[in-house]
């Protein structure tokens, strides 16, 4: 008797994991909304901290919004694997014939859609509060759109490494935030470069390069880290 596993196309697996993650995420609205509210609160704290002088705020805006986005993306990372680990479905994923890297990629994409994309959409509202003009707002959105998927992908490595570890939340930020620095530099830099009259092509190209690199490598690394965590 040879038991053949019915072969499912990898694209369909990717889609079904993506759908599962998104419907799970949407059922717990707090999961999606809390990082978003956190993002708004953090960004609103800065004017209170440094004063409401409009020139200063305008100069700080890209950096402040980007740093807030990093922290907000960080907030929901830990849950990427934790719930599946708790109910055992993560083990099934590791054991399944589908490459683990692909499943991880789907989970990272879902994380981007649920936590990165809302940030991209709400960022212009916050940008307005800092006095950014329409052009800068567009560039800010574009840089966030290119950068936040990278955050989800790199973050998945940290989430896998800290799975089931003591004090995982704080540890995760210590591990991952230094790795976010290039994204922060080029993301916030794009808006500043445009305001300074320089081209933004270089910054956006580098953000895209980081995205492509992490798109290829981080699912593999995350899969390896998950296998270590579940050993």
């Amino acid at each position, binding site marked *: 008797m040879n038991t053949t596993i019915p072969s499912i196309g990898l694209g369909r697996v990717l889609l079904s994991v993506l759908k599962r993650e998104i419907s799970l995420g949407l059922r717990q609205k707090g999961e999606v909304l809390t990082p978003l509210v956190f993002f708004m609160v953090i960004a609103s704290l800065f004017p209170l901290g440094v004063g409401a002088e409009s020139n200063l705020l305008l100069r700080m805006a890209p950096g402040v919004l980007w740093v807030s986005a990093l922290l907000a993306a960080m907030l929901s990372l830990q849950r990427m694997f934790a719930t599946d680990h708790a109910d055992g479905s993560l083990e099934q994923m590791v054991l399944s014939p589908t490459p683990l890297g692909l499943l991880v990629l789907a989970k990272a994409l879902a994380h981007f859609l649920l936590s990165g994309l809302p940030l991209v959409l709400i960022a212009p509202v916050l940008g307005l509060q800092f006095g950014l003009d329409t052009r800068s707002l567009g560039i800010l959105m574009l840089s966030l759109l290119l950068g936040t998927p990278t955050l989800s992908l790199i973050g998945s490595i940290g989430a896998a*490494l800290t799975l089931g570890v*003591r004090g995982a939340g704080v*540890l995760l930020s210590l591990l991952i935030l230094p790795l976010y620095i*290039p994204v922060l*530099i080029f993301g916030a830099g794009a808006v*500043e*470069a445009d305001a300074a009259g320089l081209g933004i092509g270089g910054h956006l190209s580098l953000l895209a390069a980081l995205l492509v690199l992490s798109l290829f490598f981080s699912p593999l690394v995350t899969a*390896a*880290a998950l296998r270590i965590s579940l050993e």
Partner: protein
Amino acid sequence: MKTRVIHWFKFASPQNFYVLAGRMWPWFAGLAAVLTLVGLWISFFVAPVDAQQGQGYRIIFVHVPASQMSMFIYLVMAAWAGIGLAFNTRLSGMMASALAPTGALFAFLSLITGSLWGKPMWGTWWVWDARLTSELILLFLYLGFLALQSSIDDPRRADKACAVLALVGAVNVPIIYFSVIWWNTLHQGASVSMKGSSMASTMLAGMLTMVLAFWMYAIAIALLRVRNIILDRERHTDWVKHAVA
């Protein structure tokens, strides 16, 4: 004549390496002590006073070796981590975790000495210069490694998880470095550069001696620390009970 063959893989076993490390570390420690004394003597009494920087420049005899070692040790650590993941050897993970605190210490030392040098030379303790910033980020990477290590109880899992982290870090270090350089030029930061071209030969000799001394110290302390790690991890075995009895 019979040629003596050394079976190198013998030392992949912690028990054998424990003995080897025990024989080696006093030599490296001795060399480190001698070289430090010679190096400090050269740097304090032989090397001339710098024409522009006065006596204050002498801190570079500690600063330069410390920052070199902090970067180099990260690479060595990542290399051990890679070997550990590839060949599943226990000793590799132990070596990586033995090196991490020394690397972190050197990164910290390099930042401290740098800011002590910066105060009289640049008039400020800290500038967001590309090299300073990337050294700071390197320190963060070391701290992340140490934090991950200490928060996983199972040493084998800790070794492997830290190995993945070290490799990810090693890939990211150049990306971070170049992005910080770009960020720095964009921000028109303090454009200070050390003109190392016209360095007196005694200064160079002092610096090289100190670099060697730091190397020897790093090797000695890593061997000493790996001995402790081996004892700790193998404490349930008979040979450890005999060794410490």
